[in-house]
């Protein structure tokens, strides 16, 4: 009760606390006056009287402190005085402050943005989709074409269904001056099934599916803003899509990226313009083969996933009587998404792990650094205690110092996070539309940084305050010695972790180098030209062939061009002919079939290892020929010499004579071998004989020739469709992005971990040197050379580094297998990496030991002995 009353009084008097302070001063003043008066009256001299009064009173400062502690003046002074003191200390110890802020902000900033990426990739539910956990993707042959889909909608009772075509790139606008947009064709049930509401206008509805109605299109928020300047009057206007007029009926909400988590710009009704949605430009609505659709379903109310699975199972056994088809299964959307983004997601998880670890050891080391600083300020603290400062006051000051540093780090962390995020988006453009750093997560991030900073500061602060008020400086030794074993363990672990991350970075550097070199063609010397003939209304295969031939003839004879070639697909383009089955497809490799002109190999720079290239003599009337790459040759005919033999390669085709073996190329993704089978364009299979790509090797370098070349080709192709000219290298770069991101992030993590570990060593040895100053002084006095002293310190550090390195290499070898999936062309046990990375880490770590060693060598014996 009494205590309560005291606190209440203190709280109420808080606003008057300042006046209280003055009041006390006046009261003490009067006290001394009264006492001096008495003393004078007793016959003392004025000086003597004053001295006696002071002596009788005791330590004035102590009384003041106690008084203030009771009045709440402390609190006011915390805000002003503590802040001023702290700011002074923080700015004075510039190096330590900057190091702390840098390490903390980098650690927190990168961790936060990488965790944001993991969230987007793996955990955040698709935006604008109602209860996504009830959605499933249906796999199985029958769910991948329209006939099958229609059949399913009639039979399935447990699910609502919708069909979506694979995204395709179409030309928006005039054929000659258009832009490409990613398009998906969907059934009218799509939007209601997902539960997505339009931002403007309406989504596709059953009325849009009626044949003969004006084709409708829904566009994405991104396209609406980029292309149409966010014009609200856009709904109802017409645009050209692949040469066909469409009415824009609505705009999808921002950040809606469907379930595939890919950026789609337009959605068209599947049944109205099926030609626009298939890769071949054919109407596939009546085709009961192929795999151009994805069927998705929503579990009806009260239906479990198991129920739906059972029904699909029954349906597939029923339907597949007679024909061999893959069974129908339903997979929750969340799972399919995890599979689809697996590489990015795996990478992100590794990065998240890496950055978190770095952050953790960064905090540990900052705690250590602060402890060193605190130890260095022993004398300052001791003086403060003598002057009557309380433990709370000391702790408070240390805390405010820490708060200052942490707050600065928190602000810096937000910027680091924004920068990292921009960088990640640069490398993973598919996710660029997502806001990773909304105000809420920014606040969270700042709080996180502040928390990390404070947490790493509280322990040393509390320790210092305790040690100092205990009054004996030698207790520091006891406290730190007790901790030194744990601390050494932490240091060894840090070096090991830094090494693991550095080895990871090394492996990534090697992988990225391997994955972007020896592609089997020369991306830096070739330009890829695609022409969207559909946009100009050229649809039939023979027409498309003629149109491309006309362009090809003009381009080939241009003085800008060294050589040019037509192909049904260029390197790195997705190949539609993959579905043509080879003879031994069931267990053997499945080749990518492309039809090309004779000059193809010269143009792309792909070498013919054996045999010959195609010639103009390989035409429709000559015997069929083919070129295979060496990987495919070894896979299909392991023990035979394939050259000049007639081989049955394709189903239901006569045997084809293999005339050449080409070097292996990298396929649609850089990490996979392509397994190419080349046919001459003149002998191409019907239905796959129209070229899709024109490859051009300019006489000049690509960079120099590109503008002129592009203008020339656009001129040639006027009226024939939308032309896209791009250096092959830019396609390679797109593919290489995630590799480079991995390298960059692992490299950054590794570098940070190395810096942090070096800092840790520096801190611990510095602390050790501080504690042993007297010992070194004695040794130096007794004749030890400074070099010997420095050697002692270095040896202590060296031992830790070696232990850490051994541990790190061991752990890296153990972890290697799980990293293997993310690597290319390099084993986790790569010798070069396992030698270079440890030497690098060791060098950096020893650098961290050097400063304390030098400091130890420079100890002045006299000073050292006087300190104790």
């Amino acid at each position: 009760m009494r205590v309560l009353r005291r606190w209440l009084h203190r709280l109420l008097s808080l606003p008057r606390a300042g006046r209280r302070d003055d009041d006390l001063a006046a009261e003490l003043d009067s006290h001394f006056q009264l006492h001096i008066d008495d003393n004078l009256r007793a016959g003392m001299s004025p000086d003597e009287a004053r001295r006696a009064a002071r002596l009788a009173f005791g330590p004035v400062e102590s009384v003041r402190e106690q008084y203030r502690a009771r009045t709440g003046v402390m609190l006011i002074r915390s805000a002003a005085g503590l802040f001023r003191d702290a700011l002074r200390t923080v700015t004075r110890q510039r190096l330590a402050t900057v190091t702390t802020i840098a390490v903390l902000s980098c650690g927190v900033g990168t961790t936060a943005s990488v965790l944001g990426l993991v969230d987007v990739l793996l955990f955040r539910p698709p935006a604008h989709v109602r209860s996504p956990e009830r959605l499933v993707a249906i796999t199985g042959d029958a769910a991948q074409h329209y006939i099958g889909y229609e059949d399913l909608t009639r039979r399935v009772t447990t699910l609502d269904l919708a069909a979506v075509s694979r995204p395709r790139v179409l030309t928006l606008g005039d054929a000659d001056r258009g832009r490409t947009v990613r398009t998906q064709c969907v059934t009218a049930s799509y939007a209601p099934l997902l539960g997505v509401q339009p931002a403007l206008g309406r989504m596709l509805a059953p009325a849009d599916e009626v044949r003969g109605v004006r084709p409708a299109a829904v566009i994405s928020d991104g396209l609406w803003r980029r292309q149409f300047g966010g014009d609200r009057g856009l709904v109802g206007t017409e645009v050209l899509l692949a040469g066909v007029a469409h009415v824009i009926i609505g705009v999808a909400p921002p950040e809606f990226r469907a379930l595939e988590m890919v950026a789609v710009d337009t959605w068209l009704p599947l049944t109205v313009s099926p030609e626009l949605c298939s890769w071949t430009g054919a109407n596939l609505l009546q085709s009961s083969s192929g795999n151009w659709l994805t069927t998705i379903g929503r579990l009806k109310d009260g239906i479990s996933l198991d129920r739906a699975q059972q029904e699909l199972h029954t349906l597939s056994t029923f339907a597949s009587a007679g024909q061999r088809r893959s069974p129908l299964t339903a997979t929750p959307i969340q799972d399919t998404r995890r599979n689809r983004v697996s590489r990015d997601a795996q990478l992100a998880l590794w990065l998240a792990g890496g950055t978190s670890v770095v952050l953790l050891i960064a905090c540990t080391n900052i705690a250590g650094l602060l402890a060193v600083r605190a130890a260095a300020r022993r004398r300052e603290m001791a003086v403060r205690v003598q002057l009557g400062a309380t433990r709370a006051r000391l702790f408070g000051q240390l805390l405010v110092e820490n708060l200052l540093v942490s707050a600065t780090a928190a602000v810096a962390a937000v910027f680091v996070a924004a920068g990292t995020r921009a960088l990640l988006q640069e490398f993973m453009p598919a996710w660029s539309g997502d806001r990773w750093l909304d105000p809420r997560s920014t606040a969270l991030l700042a709080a996180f940084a502040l928390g990390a900073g404070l947490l790493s500061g509280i322990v040393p602060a509390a320790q210092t305050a305790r040690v100092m008020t205990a009054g004996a400086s030698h207790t520091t030794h006891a406290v730190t010695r007790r901790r030194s074993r744990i601390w050494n363990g932490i240091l060894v672990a840090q070096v090991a972790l830094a090494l693991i991350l550095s080895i990871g970075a090394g492996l990534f550097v090697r992988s990225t180098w391997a994955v972007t070199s020896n592609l089997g063609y020369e991306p830096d010397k070739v330009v890829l030209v695609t022409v969207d003939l559909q946009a100009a209304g050229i649809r039939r295969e023979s027409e498309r062939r003629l149109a491309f031939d006309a362009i090809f003839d003009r381009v080939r004879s241009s003085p800008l061009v060294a050589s040019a070639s037509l192909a049904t697909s260029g390197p790195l383009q997705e190949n539609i002919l993959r579905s043509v089955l080879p003879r031994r497809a069931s267990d053997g490799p499945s080749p990518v079939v492309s039809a090309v002109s004779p000059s193809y190999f010269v143009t792309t720079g792909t070498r013919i290892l054996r045999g010959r290239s195609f010639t103009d003599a390989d035409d429709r009337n000559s015997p069929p020929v083919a070129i295979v790459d060496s990987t495919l040759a070894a896979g299909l005919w392991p023990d035979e010499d394939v050259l000049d033999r007639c081989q049955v390669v394709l189903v239901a085709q006569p045997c084809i004579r293999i005339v050449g073996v080409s070097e292996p190329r990298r396929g649609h993704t850089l990490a996979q071998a392509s397994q190419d089978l080349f046919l001459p364009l003149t002998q191409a299979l019907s239905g796959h004989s129209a070229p899709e790509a024109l490859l051009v090797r300019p006489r000049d370098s690509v960079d120099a020739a590109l503008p002129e070349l592009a203008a020339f080709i656009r001129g040639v192709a006027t009226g024939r469709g939308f032309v896209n000219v791009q250096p092959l290298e830019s396609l390679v770069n797109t593919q290489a992005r995630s590799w480079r991101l991995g390298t960059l992030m692992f490299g950054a993590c590794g570098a940070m971990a190395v810096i942090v570990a070096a800092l840790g060593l520096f801190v611990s040895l510095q602390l050790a040197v501080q504690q042993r100053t007297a010992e070194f002084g004695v040794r130096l006095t007794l004749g030890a050379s400074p070099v010997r002293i420095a050697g002692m310190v270095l040896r202590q550090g060296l031992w830790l580094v070696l232990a850490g390195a051994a541990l790190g290499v061991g752990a890296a070898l153990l972890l290697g297998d799980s990293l293997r999936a993310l690597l290319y062309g390099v084993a986790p046990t790569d010798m070069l990496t396992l030698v270079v990375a440890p030497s690098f880490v060791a060098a950096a770590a020893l650098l961290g030991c050097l400063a304390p060693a030098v400091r130890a060598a420079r100890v002045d014996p006299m000073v050292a002995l006087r300190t104790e």
Partner: protein
Amino acid sequence: MSPVEDKSAVWQGTLSLMVLKTLATMGPLHGYGLARRIEQTSGNRLALNYGTIYPMLLKLEQEGAIRSEWGLSENKRRAKFYTLTRAGRRRADDETRQWSTMNEILDLFLEPGKR
């Protein structure tokens, strides 16, 4: 060194009771006078740091046992005078009773043959 250990809780409690009792018998006093009076009452056997009296006075004031106001001393110096409140008087009586009881009990231990 005073006979009683300076910062102990016992000393704190004793000092507060001494302050209360002194104010009860002497009426309003300023800090210096109070300290001197306590010394005199103890027969100069208690040599306290005068400074320690001020935090104690503040504590008692905050607890409502005393109140203070500025006034003039007998030799015309400005000084802050402390007066016992009604609650303070009650508290002085309570604590006196408790101390007496405590002393009687202690006496039984310290001088067993007395009764």
